[in-house]
């Protein structure tokens, strides 16, 4: 009689999941599952709500990336009502999204992922966490705590709230930026930019060069990739068009509005979260790690893969170094961490760019809005992947129906595959222990789900 190992909860992730590992009579892995355990029903309960209220309801989908849902929703509602924000309103939204990306990435790399590398994957679980880092490496911890806090405070000072924002509004932004605010934010943005370069160097020295075997092999699978680029092929997080790349590196570009032609969501009985896949490839859906069908990944590694270049100088330098070393497209799952830190540099540089934009303190931040029936598709790149909010409104401007594809869900099927790959390669002949099981989780953590 085979055994089932039930790893629950999957820890140091942002959500509720469990991993089931099914062993056969010889103690080898015959099947694995990543169960996604929560269902809240946002697609249902925003029905009937006045559309302009929705961006401050759907931000509660996530307390770590609320700005992403807030802004995708704002774009969708703008689309329903047929309004375009004035330039300052548009830029203030992107500015806030960049600051949100910054604190999200600092949180993920240092607070959630780093313990596996700084303390070690085999460390005692009670020490292998950020609290352990505070005790073992207090200087690093202090720096990291300060920097993450700073990026949250910048959002709070300017936009009122960092968690569950309200300043993005239908037609633009709720308030203009004063020159004093701009100067203060610019100073802090430069501090964060310096830190982002330090973070990348730290990771190259303490993670990527020290754990080469894990980086190359753990959780590595073969998939396509989805991200956002602009007309010049630059990686973009706020605005652009979608690029869906196949495992062989060939790709197709399409606008947000065409997403339903490319993506469909498959349902498995063991996950409340659905599994998007590339229906446009006409190969169906399969998570077989030896013959995947329709599977693509989103999030940092995907965005780096689909992009031709980065729009800011230091990020471009880091991007070129990465591409020269690893090629394109890169399939090694643990390299999500490296890609994440390149994006951190970009988000800091883009924050500074926007704060130096001549329009940023313009007082015209919101267009007149009149509610009406319509449909709007709002899309941004959330830290975890391409985020799509698709709303339809009635003549009162209230939500009739909604479809949301949340960034992290593009990676549910790939994470299942990475878990299968990791478990099968690490657990053999009934030999397993905490370290090996933690490594299986590391294959999941790289996706920052």
């Amino acid at each position, binding site marked *: 009689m085979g055994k089932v190992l039930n790893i629950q909860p999957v820890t140091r992730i942002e959500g509720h999941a469990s991993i089931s590992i099914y062993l056969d009579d010889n103690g080898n892995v015959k099947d694995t599952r990543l169960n996604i355990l929560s269902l809240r029903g946002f697609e249902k309960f925003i029905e009937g709500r006045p559309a302009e209220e929705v961006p*401050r309801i759907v931000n509660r989908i996530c*307390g770590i990336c609320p700005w992403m849902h807030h802004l995708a929703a704002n774009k969708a509602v703008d689309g329903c009502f047929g309004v375009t924000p004035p330039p300052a309103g548009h830029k203030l939204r992107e500015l806030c999204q960049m600051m949100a990306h910054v604190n999200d990435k600092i949180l993920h790399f240092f607070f959630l992922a780093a313990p596996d590398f700084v303390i070690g994957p085999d460390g005692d679980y009670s020490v292998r966490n950020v609290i352990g880092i505070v005790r073992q490496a207090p200087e690093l911890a202090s720096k990291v*705590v300060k920097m993450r806090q700073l990026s*949250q405070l910048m959002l709070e000072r300017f936009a*009122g709230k960092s968690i569950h924002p309200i300043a993005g509004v239908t037609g633009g932004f709720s308030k*203009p930026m004063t020159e004093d605010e701009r100067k203060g934010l610019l100073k802090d943005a430069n501090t964060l930019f310096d830190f982002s370069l330090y973070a990348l160097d730290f990771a190259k020295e303490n993670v990527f060069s020290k754990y080469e075997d894990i980086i190359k092999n753990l959780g590595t699978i073969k998939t396509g990739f989805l991200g956002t680029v602009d007309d010049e092929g630059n990686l973009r997080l706020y605005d652009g068009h979608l690029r869906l790349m196949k495992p062989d590196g060939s790709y197709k570009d399409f606008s947000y509005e065409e*997403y339903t032609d490319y993506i469909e969501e498959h349902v498995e009985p063991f996950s409340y979260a659905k599994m998007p896949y590339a229906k446009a490839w006409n190969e169906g859906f399969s998570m077989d790690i030896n013959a995947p069908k329709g599977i693509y990944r989103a999030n940092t590694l995907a965005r780096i893969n689909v992009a031709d270049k980065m729009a800011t100088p230091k990020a471009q330098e880091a991007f070129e170094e990465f591409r020269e070393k690893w090629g394109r497209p890169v399939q090694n799952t643990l390299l999500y961490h490296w890609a994440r830190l390149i994006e951190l540099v970009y988000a800091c540089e883009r924050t500074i760019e926007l704060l130096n934009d001549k329009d940023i303190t313009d007082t015209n931040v919101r267009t007149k809005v009149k509610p009406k029936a319509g449909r709007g598709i709002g899309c941004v790149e959330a830290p975890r992947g391409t985020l799509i909010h698709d709303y339809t409104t009635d003549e009162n401007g209230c939500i009739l129906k909604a479809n949301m594809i949340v960034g992290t869900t593009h990676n549910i099927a790939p994470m299942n595959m990475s878990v299968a790959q990791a478990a099968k390669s690490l657990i053999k002949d009934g030999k397993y222990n905490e370290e090996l099981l933690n490594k299986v989780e590391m294959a999941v953590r790289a996706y920052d789900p």
Partner: protein
Amino acid sequence: MAVRVAEEWLSACSGCEIAILNIGEPLVDLLDKLEFVHIPVLMDHKYYGQCGEKKELDIPEADIGIVSGAVANEEHLEVLHKMRERCNILIALGTCATHGGIPALLNCWTMDEALETIFNTPTTQKPSSYPDEGVPKLLDRVYAVDEKVDVDIYLPGCPPNPRHIAEVINALLKGDKPSLPGKSVCDTCPAKRKGKGNVKKIKRFLENAKIDPNQPIEEMQCLLEQGFMCMGPVTAAGCAIDGAPRCISAHVPCRGCFGPVKKDGNQLLDMFNALASNGIDWKSVVDRKSLLRFSGAHGMLRPTRK
């Protein structure tokens, strides 16, 4: 001796956990006095043993237990009961835990109606049955924590104020019983009250609040007086940091995310009373159920009878 803390999140979004981190540098000092024995977002303690071989869910004993999120499925219930059993003092953190929060908006529908919509969107390959392998069954509706277990301390907010979280923990470490002020958001709001003037109807938030961009927040006229729906009068105080309630500081009206002023208040009825007593037609409010968007547990929001 370090005080042991266990933390769990139920139907949650992780905002409360980030609010704990937003205590900032003082949190690092607090860590000297605390020992986290279980906190899934940060630490690898597992329910079924570290190698997943045990059959019974277990959480270690703790002096202080913190629970965020509403109660929406069988597993939340199991985890919550275990937390209550193992923790000496139980704190309900965040408005989802204290009042149902945003997830309780689902209570406007039956679970069948909800699943029918969610698994039938235009891009969903409609399954022959809903997920039921290795995932917990949904309860009949979304509950607040105190509808299922006794709660010792309520710390509402969406998100809660990091300063309050720190104050409560520090008070508990000293052996004091923490208390939070029983005021409303209006009591902490610096906006200028000029008198309601001619406001007879509530307008939707489709234009920005009137305020001279170079003036401080104290010069902005009260948003309710400007004719916007602002739930300050019926919402518990607590969000204000450095001078103004959070949304007000961004020139945006309050939507009640700290829950009612009194724990068992009704934010919808209380708001309509407040509007009526100021001569404002409460029938002009579009989507009245929205006034309960943060406090829809405790039977406040129910499916409409057909």
